[in-house]
């Protein structure tokens, strides 16, 4: 089940929220855990066991970690836990990839291939694995006390708003909220507002842009007319942002409806003036996880420019690979690692002194080129696509090739949504602040009314769009 589905909004959510608020405060965590397990089981019944069993493994280790005497034992237990969690992730997410690589190498050496049954990927495993690691490390470092009970721990891992696609919540950020949190109408309504906004971003912006990008990227890239190349890339750049950020908005909103306050995951990343700043604004929960649990332990920026550059590059390589088991993601990570290293060499402060317009345009261009690597199947595909961005002689093909005709590929809705998504993405932080839109609660009566109206509009139009996708009639029956 995903948040942007009618069954979630009109079946799961009313039942869950009613039971949640009906239950006495002490029982609400139990309802939340049960609801989360139902939510996960609904989508992936086969993998619910993995979520729970690996959770029990993590919790058991944390109890041992608390009782362990001596640094060596604690280190060993932490190492065992982290390795165990990563092994589960590696098996489910990366084993197919590594077997494919091995078989490729064996074929090259004219040897037989490894017989392998492809492993299915459990939903959200990348996210909940990192959360489990975060918990173990927090307990090891003493940043947080261990969970009061296995139920609290499972609730932290499986809490449905953030289970599938983050934000990656760190244990010390929610430990106190799991123990006790305030429920009130203002917070609940703030959650409704945020959820509706996220639903609108996902369904009304990201989905149509994604459909257009899919249509374009599915074409023969080597003959792709230049306007499609640009529109496809832009559609994807705004799709991935609004899709992911919209999902995070929904997660944060759902969390607020349950009294939780999750950390923000996106902060207008396309207004960044450097790639370094972009990564402070994009998928912030992953960036901070990588910083705290990988970059700093590697030495961070304390061991000279060369080592810092390597650390950055390595962290981004890992981060890229975390996004998906394919070379494209590795290259994408390496691309960003290289950009960040270069920015460090040039001097981030110097780059930030560039006029804002130039900095934003340059950063957006570099990031968008990175999305090309992310979206295409292979690096050669990305290079071919890149060449089509300047294939000016192919301009007219968009209007003369009946198989790839402009009105068939790029609907007016696509263009309108692209303009809207771009406008929404480039509104700067001061504007949001000046008008109080970055606050959880409305700051004036007028804004409260606007929020209610806008949330209702987003909810209505998103539901209309979701229902519309379920009805694609033929004019007459054929046979």
């Amino acid at each position, binding site marked *: 089940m995903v948040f942007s589905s009618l069954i979630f909004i009109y079946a799961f*959510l009313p039942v869950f929220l009613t039971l949640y608020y009906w239950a006495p405060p002490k029982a609400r965590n139990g309802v939340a855990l049960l609801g989360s397990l139902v939510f996960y089981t609904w989508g992936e019944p086969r993998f619910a066991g993995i979520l729970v069993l690996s959770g029990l493994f993590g919790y058991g280790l944390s109890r041992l970690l608390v009782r362990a005497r001596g640094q060596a034992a604690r280190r060993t237990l932490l190492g065992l836990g982290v390795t165990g969690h990563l092994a589960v992730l590696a098996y489910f997410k990366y084993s197919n990839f590594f077997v494919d690589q091995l078989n490729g190498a064996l074929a090259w050496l004219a040897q037989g291939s490894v017989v392998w049954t492809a492993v299915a990927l459990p939903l959200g495993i990348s996210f909940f694995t990192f959360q489990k690691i975060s918990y173990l490390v927090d307990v090891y470092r003493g940043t947080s006390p261990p969970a009061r009970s296995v139920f609290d721990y499972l609730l932290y891992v499986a809490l449905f708003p953030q289970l599938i696609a983050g934000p990656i919540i760190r244990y010390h950020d929610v430990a106190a909220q799991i123990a006790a949190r305030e429920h009130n109408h203002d917070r609940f309504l703030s959650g409704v507002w945020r959820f509706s906004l996220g639903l609108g971003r996902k369904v009304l912006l990201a989905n149509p842009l994604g459909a257009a990008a899919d249509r374009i990227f599915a074409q023969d890239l080597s003959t792709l007319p230049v306007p499609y190349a640009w529109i496809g890339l832009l559609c994807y750049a705004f799709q991935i942002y609004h899709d992911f950020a919209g999902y995070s908005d929904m997660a944060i909103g759902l969390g607020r409806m349950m009294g939780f306050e999750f950390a923000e995951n996106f902060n207008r990343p396309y207004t960044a003036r450097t790639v370094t700043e972009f990564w402070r604004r994009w998928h912030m929960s992953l960036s901070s996880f990588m910083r705290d649990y990988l970059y700093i332990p590697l030495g961070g920026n304390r061991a000279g420019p060369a080592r810092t550059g390597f650390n950055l590059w390595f962290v981004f390589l890992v981060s890229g690979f975390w996004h998906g088991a394919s070379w494209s993601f590795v290259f994408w990570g390496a691309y960003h690692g290289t950009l960040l290293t270069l920015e460090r060499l040039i001097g981030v402060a110097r780059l930030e002194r560039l006029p804002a317009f130039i900095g934003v345009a340059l950063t957006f261009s570099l990031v968008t080129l990175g999305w090309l690597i992310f979206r295409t199947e292979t690096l050669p595909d990305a290079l071919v696509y890149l060449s089509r961005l300047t294939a000016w002689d192919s301009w007219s093909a968009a209007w003369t090739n009946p198989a790839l005709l402009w009105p068939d590929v790029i609907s007016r809705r696509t263009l309108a949504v692209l303009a809207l998504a771009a406008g929404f993405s480039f509104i700067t932080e001061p504007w949001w602040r000046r008008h109080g839109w970055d606050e959880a609660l409305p700051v004036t009566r007028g804004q409260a009314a606007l929020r209610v109206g806008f949330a209702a509009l987003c909810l209505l139009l998103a539901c209309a769009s979701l229902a519309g996708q379920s009805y694609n009639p033929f004019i007459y029956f054929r046979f």
Partner: protein
Amino acid sequence: MSRRLPVLLTCGFFGWLWLIGILTFLPGLQIGGALRGVIEKPAAPAWSLQGVLDGSSFRAAENWFSSHVGLHNLWVRLDNQVSYTLLRESPVRETGTRVVVSPGDWLFEHVYITAAITPSKLSADELADMAARIQRVQTKLERRGTRLLLVVAPSKVELYPEHVPPAHFAGRDPAAILTSYERLRPLLHEAGVEFYDGPERFAAWKAAGHGSLFARTGTHWSYYAIYHVLEELREKLNPHLRRPLPGLGLTSLDYEQPQRTDTDLHRVLNLLLPPFHEPIQPFPVIQAQDEVPAEDLPRLLWVNDSFGLGLIDTLYRANAMQPTHSLYYFQNIYSLPGLHRQDGAITDIEWESYLAEFDAVVVVLTEIALEQQAWGFFEALDTALD
């Protein structure tokens, strides 16, 4: 802010979620009017252990829920109306009929636009074979006292290209593209095939200043044009029929609103509101004849696509034809009037005895469907009959 307002808003949100959720299971309370067009609605999920384990039952439940959600029809119409009103287009869907909205609310089916700018792919030999086969079937039927009439219906796009947004034509001129039908036409004449050349007749009517041949909001020839087509078909058929078609008792023309297939494209858009420009479209009001007794009316076998439905409907409104069959798309047998699907497969038909029941065989297909050679009908008869 009043402390009551947050409470009210919270209750409103809960109430809204519950209302839509409950309405999902009360289909009788759906509002928004029935949706038009043909779609295969997802069946209710069949829950089984295997289905639960592999997730297929859950997916089926989600699909079912999405297509039955409370106020579903209203949601669909709202989504379509947003696209139509703000963007002057119908939402792009992966499947289903794609409607192109042109200025002045001229609606076109996308498939006809593609056909109009796609040159014929059939070889000269294939076309010659097709004409020869139709001629052979015509002769074989004639020998059995059954008249064959091939009726080729025109494409709205070919007739009214000036109303299609030029961007859809890929810089091509439909008039300059030779379609399979345009290449077949002289071969049919040469072979002596008796056929009704809808595209040629409609072009002539248009040149003579006749309007309303296609409704702006329809994809098929208009009911107004159907009346004139039937008059010409009578002239072609009657000299060869033992039981001729009686005249169609046209009493008046109704100019109120487009009716039946004259508004089929608009209906399939499933909007909340009527189109901005709902054009005047004459609809023939026909008086059912009662002079010719039922047993003296002709029995025609129809092999047709949806262009045949208007002809059949008009003939029954005029009480001009006996109950009969339609081999719709030559896929299934339907009884007429009413278009009820019959048991039995077309492949099981014993043609010699079956054809003896009919005075004539009328094959109706659109010019763009000609490449499909009447869906195998001529080939089947050519093989089955000596």
